[in-house]
């Protein structure tokens, strides 16, 4: 009986990458969950309308600062995984960073989309919590094996970005740069970024409600 990638059967080897997924999901989604809703609630969004700023520019302006904040969180996570918990990093750092930046964008996109769609801080906070935290814990394959879930539930997990990021992190940290795992998973995340971006732009058109 041999356990590849984790000879000593250290549970923190799979727990730490899974926790990074949780932390990044929450940081990403909750940082942006309130920003658009707050502007709508306070009525400052209307003032933005009368400026020549285009809605894409508003969205970018709302994304970039939180993206940088998310990156700081990400670096803290990677450093503590490596030096505090001594999880081996068998893949390369650029691949890890690229996958994680993509995921931060997905998480920020979820927050922005919810925030622009519901335009209410109380509901936005509830929805983004619901959409991210427990699903990332229970349905991402971090704790429970995806293959053993009933088909209907497995179908739901395909819609969850956390699922792809868990596969990416577990592989990049423990197995190395296995391109046949990394490429499809990153492609899914990239597709989600595009969808979320389009969706958010559609609900933030400059118009009065």
């Amino acid at each position, binding site marked *: *009986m*041999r*356990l*590849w*990638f*984790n*000879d000593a*059967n*250290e*549970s923190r*080897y*799979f727990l730490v990458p899974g*926790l990074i997924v*949780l*932390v990044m999901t*929450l940081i990403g989604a*909750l*940082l942006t*969950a*309130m920003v658009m809703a*707050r502007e709508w609630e306070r009525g400052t969004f209307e003032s933005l309308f009368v400026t020549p700023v285009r809605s894409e520019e508003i969205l970018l302006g709302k994304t970039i600062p939180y993206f940088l904040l998310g990156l700081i969180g990400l670096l803290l996570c990677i450093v503590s995984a490596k030096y505090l918990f001594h999880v081996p990093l068998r893949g390369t750092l650029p691949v890890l960073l690229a996958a994680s930046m993509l995921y931060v964008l997905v998480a920020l996109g979820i927050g922005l989309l919810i925030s622009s769609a*519901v335009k*209410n*801080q*109380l*509901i936005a*906070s*509830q*929805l983004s*919590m*619901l959409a991210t*935290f*427990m699903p990332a*814990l*229970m*349905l991402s*394959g*971090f*704790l*429970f*094996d995806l*293959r*053993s*879930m*009933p088909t*209907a*539930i497995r179908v*739901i*997990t395909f819609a969850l970005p956390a699922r792809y990021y868990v*596969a990416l992190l*577990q*592989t990049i940290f*423990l*197995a*190395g740069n*296995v391109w*046949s*795992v990394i490429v499809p998973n990153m492609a899914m995340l990239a597709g989600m970024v595009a969808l979320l971006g389009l969706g958010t732009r559609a609900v933030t058109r400059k118009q009065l409600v």
Partner: protein
Amino acid sequence: MLESLLRIIALTRKELLAVLKDPRSRNSLLIPAIVQSLVFGYAATYDLYHVPYAVLDQDHSVASRQLLAGLDGSGVFERVADLRSAADIRTWIDRRRALLVVQINQDFEKQLQRGQSADVQVIADGRNSNTAATASSYVTAVVGAFNQRWRQDHGQPPDVLTSSDRAWYNPNLETRWNIIPGLIGTLALIQTLMLTAMSVAREREQGTFDQLLVTPFKPFEIMAGKALPSMFVGIAQATGVFLVAQLWFQIPFAGSVVTLYVGLLMFLLAAVGIGLLLSSVMATMQQAMLSALLFIMPFSLLSGLTTPVSNMPTVLQYFTAINPLMYAIDIARRVYLEGAGLSLLTPDLWPLAIIAAVTLSAASWMFGHRVT
């Protein structure tokens, strides 16, 4: 006294209206708890039902085929490939196509016939070492059954010593029996703590909190008026999950519903207390949300929902002493599985009472003393 009570009721009513009148906010509070308990109830299992595995059979003998037939017939293992060489193992595991590879060496049958021990190598994908360990324990069970049959068929003496495990209270060790009672507290905690943390912050942000302070309300009454609506919502959510557990999953319920609700009420008092205390300190909703998150995340990860508290490092075990969810999950599981009564649950109930008393009184003190 009566006037004070009327004021509390009025404020509670106003708060409930504020949250429940908007259909979107009403739906976001009541429906998700039920949907989530259904989905997670199915998702949450440490048992494996589909294990894709590959075989590297270098013996090709009757014995090796018998062993593999045992795996294939188990209903759990699904053979995805017959490998030719040891070099193939890496590709199948690396690419996550097989969770494990069973390798049978060349003279497997010969060694068995001589009555020697023969090795079966199992190579498992340790990226999720929990799943891998469970899957290999299944292999061990199949190999054990094969061993016994082989010895019987070939006139060899059976194993002298066999151990058998029995788990009390949950004889089939169903993960679901453990997770779903735990979800009652967890799902209620996440949304209620968030809701309460936002409640005062929202009034601050909209400037209506100062108006509330100049009314005849005493700080204690404001606190009660904010706490009660959140507790109603929490109880409603917990009831939703409880009904799913009873009616849909039909988890055996050994204890009494009254005991469970007494525990839940104490738990919600503590959770709402923490939320209100946060809310009383924070100035904006965004601050309230992020600070609530800072509590929700460790509370749910260090609660024993998915990993036992007794396995955590000692420092973290001390932290769990102030985690209301840890007590709530313990209460729910013990009421469900052991049928524990109130007297057995006192070690869980009094810490909850202390947390509630400290946080609620601190929150009401803050209401009176922090004017922005």
